[in-house]
């Protein structure tokens, strides 16, 4: 049945949407080697999760999913903070954000 009254939009639409966004995020990190862009792609994946969560909370008529979305945002923020600082440190040492340079550790 439809999620939003008076429209043909069912939960499945949102499932697909978030699935697509999630996969796009994955595509991003696969496709690019630049750390910054890859971070962004991860953020994209997180947001795909957010969307579907909100949609579900609408479906079940419960708030906790939306609260969860808050926490996801919080975590995202924290991650970005740490991640970017790591990135900066890396840049300081290697003068690049190209992840393929990072292969000292292997085999």
């Amino acid at each position, binding site marked *: *049945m439809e*999620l*939003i009254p*008076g*429209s*043909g*939009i069912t*939960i*499945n*639409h949102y*499932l*697909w*949407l978030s*699935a*697509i*966004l*999630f*996969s*796009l995020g*994955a595509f*991003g990190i*696969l*496709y690019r*080697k630049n750390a*910054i*862009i890859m971070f*962004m*792609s991860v*953020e*994209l994946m997180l*947001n795909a999760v*957010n*969307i579907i969560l*909100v949609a579900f909370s*609408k*479906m*079940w*008529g*419960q708030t*906790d999913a*939306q*609260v969860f979305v*808050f*926490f996801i*945002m*919080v*975590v*995202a*923020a924290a*991650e970005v*903070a*740490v991640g*970017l*600082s790591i990135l*900066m*440190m890396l840049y300081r*040492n290697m003068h690049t*954000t*190209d992840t*393929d340079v990072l292969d000292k550790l292997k085999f």
Partner: protein
Amino acid sequence: MVEFLFWFLSGVGILSAIATILSKNPVYSVLFLIVTFFSIAGHYFLLNAQFLAAVHIIVYAGAIMVLFLYVIMMLNLNRLDDDRKASWSKAISVASACLLMFVIVAALRRTDELNNVQTAANSNDIGFTKNLGIALFRDCLLPFELATVLFLGAMVGAVYLSKKEAINN
């Protein structure tokens, strides 16, 4: 109307997401990503999660992306040329991403068990600040507190890493 909005927002979101990934200049990517976020916020509105939408804009567009921009500026990375990546590997990445998408979508295509879930009557006002607040500060107080620990940890970490030390190895 709603239907049109859905399709429009989705289209914009997806396209700008693709743009984010493909654009050479990181600044553009950031901007495209912000567009995506806005479209997502739109979806939140559609789903009566107005407050969340607002927070979303503030946190992501307002904070996170700014942080990104700041870093990009600071490291002045305009025009990243990572085309050195071999075309076959690009092909592989595209292929596997599509594979992932197909698998997930295919898996989620038939979700019959959800079709008989009645959308709750109150589902239009759960997004209100009041309800959220109640939920947040009664049921989810503990996670909320823990989030502070998380932030503290992240902060300490970020500070620790950003302290300048020269490399010598």
